[in-house]
């Protein structure tokens, strides 16, 4: 079981999966002939190569003693991703300020230390900086708070 959870074996599986996904979604694309290649020719070729390489990586991983995968820690990646997604959802609906408060609050929780006073200070500093750089400096068409500014 250890070998199947190694970095090498899992990355082989990942490459095979990408190859299969590309084959599945590319099946409607016309192949064409080698002279006049259709849109599907090169993608199909790449998918087969990826699947082949993935298989080789898996076989090598089983045959040797590969490095085990470290146990993933869900908090940092989960919270950082959640923060970015919240930013994306809030930015156009509510403006830069609410979006960035959400992002900084969520992302600050991803680390080990969390001090509310510090986080608020960080927010204020970044809010001023971003407004100056993006809105005033680069003249980007963004609203700081939707409907107000």
């Amino acid at each position, binding site marked *: 079981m250890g070998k199947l959870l190694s*970095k*090498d074996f*899992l*990355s082989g599986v*990942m*490459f095979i999966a990408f190859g299969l996904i*590309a084959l599945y*979604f*590319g099946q409607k694309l*016309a192949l064409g002939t*080698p*002279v006049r*290649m*259709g*849109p*599907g*020719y*090169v*993608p199909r070729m*790449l*998918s087969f190569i*990826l699947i082949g*390489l993935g298989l*080789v*990586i898996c076989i*090598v991983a089983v045959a040797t003693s590969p*490095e085990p*995968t470290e146990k993933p*820690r869900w908090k*940092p*990646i989960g919270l*950082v*991703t959640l*923060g*970015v*997604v919240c*930013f*994306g959802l809030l*930015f*156009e609906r509510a403006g*830069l300020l609410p979006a960035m408060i959400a*992002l*900084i609050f969520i*992302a*600050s929780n*991803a*680390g*080990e*230390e*969390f001090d509310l006073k*510090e*986080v608020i200070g*960080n927010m204020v500093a*970044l809010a001023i900086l*971003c407004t100056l750089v*993006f809105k005033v400096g*680069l003249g*980007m*068409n*963004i609203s700081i708070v939707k409907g107000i500014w």
Partner: protein
Amino acid sequence: MDMLQNLALGLSVALTLQNLTYALIGCVVGTLIGVLPGIGPVATIAMLLPITFHLPPVAALIMLAGIYYGAQYGGSTTSILVNLPGEAASVVTCLDGHQMAKRGRAGAALSISAVGSFFAGTVGTILIVAFAEPLTRMAQKFGPADYCSLMALGLVAAVVLASGSVIKAIAMVFLGLLFGLIGTDVNTGAQRFTFDIPELSDGIDFAPIAMGLFGIAEIVVNLERRLARTSAVKVDSLWPTREEVRRAIPAALRGTALGATLGVLPGGGPTLGAFSSYTLEKRISKNPQEFGKGAVEGVAAPEAANNAAAQTSFIPMLTLGIPSNAVMALMVGAMIIQGIQPGPEVMTKKPDLFWGMIVSMWIGNLMLVIINLPMIGMWVKLLTVPYRFLAPAILLFCCIGAYSLQNSTFHVMQVAAFGVLGYIFARLGCEGAPFLLGLVLGPQMEEYFRRAMLLSRGDPSVFVERPISLGLLIVTAFLLILMALPAVKKARTEAFKEEG
């Protein structure tokens, strides 16, 4: 003299107030991120790509180039003073640089490294000027089949010289090529892998992918392992002793030569240059036991090498349009955002951009010596900024930058998605750089491949019948066979061991 005329044109472009300002901004930002651990030049350039969209092309490229070589300077400062490499190429500088600092020679180590870097940067710039024209002329003779083989060589060489498992890196290249095909097929207009998302029909955007893979993933990995902090050594006099200078000069010369050579190679770059020149110095030194205890050569050589390599790695990108490492891939991306197709045409069609950028690199190097030496105290203070302040700031800049690409939150979501993918890559030990190279070259490579096959009426032997293409493919095959040999494999693993 053509070369002098070109340089004069370059000077006239680089010395405008606007371009000088952007060169300075680039150098300052570069030094800053070089000093700060946990964020490197790749992530920074990826983050700033969308902003360059708002700038004129010359200014944008000058600024990005400044970040790249500025990071080399900044990285050495923290390596010497706090034994904390700001970025990968200065890992070796820690070995002897910090030991020198501990013995009270911090100032000397800093000035040797800054002056050595400046000298190497100057040589690198001269080499770019010398090689640009002949290489460009050669590239103009290339047919589609030759180009396809050249890209194959570039990609394979990049993989061979990168650290980590070769076969995984090759698979990452192919995965990158596959992602590069997303969008509308140029020849037939068919939608490929767009899943009816209108934003994807112009092709998948390069900047959000780079931000996700390098920016977000890097932040998460850093948050997981918690960066350690040590206090900085005090800086005394900046002047090295005569003995130190006597030992540093030949070492810096050798470092420059080795770094400049390795920088041109695909997959080469500052990190490889620094590591190799340190090994070389240790091997030829009369007192190898001094290395690791504060040998002057161990600072001068790798510092010169990483800067020389940072400069010369622009050569294949500017003349052939082939990026040799992740930063160059981002530069290609920046050019494409500006509507410039990198390749041999850049020099003939946009001479002001080409020569202006080259000359500004030299000016930037000069600025860096001035920024770095007198202001060292200020840079060191920055080290006390904890990562928990930096991480949200970096994330925020990524998000706003991604949005500003096309004023659409779709790109912000794309950053999130590729952040997750980048994290998976990092956990599985798959390198992001080969993926990025494949992604950048994918669309062009397919185009050349299809054109070559059309011209040869579907006969794949065109790739081995044209002498240029055949030569390139033989070198590619040779590299691949070399990698399979056990002796080479072992040497390669050892060479990258210190990098960790």
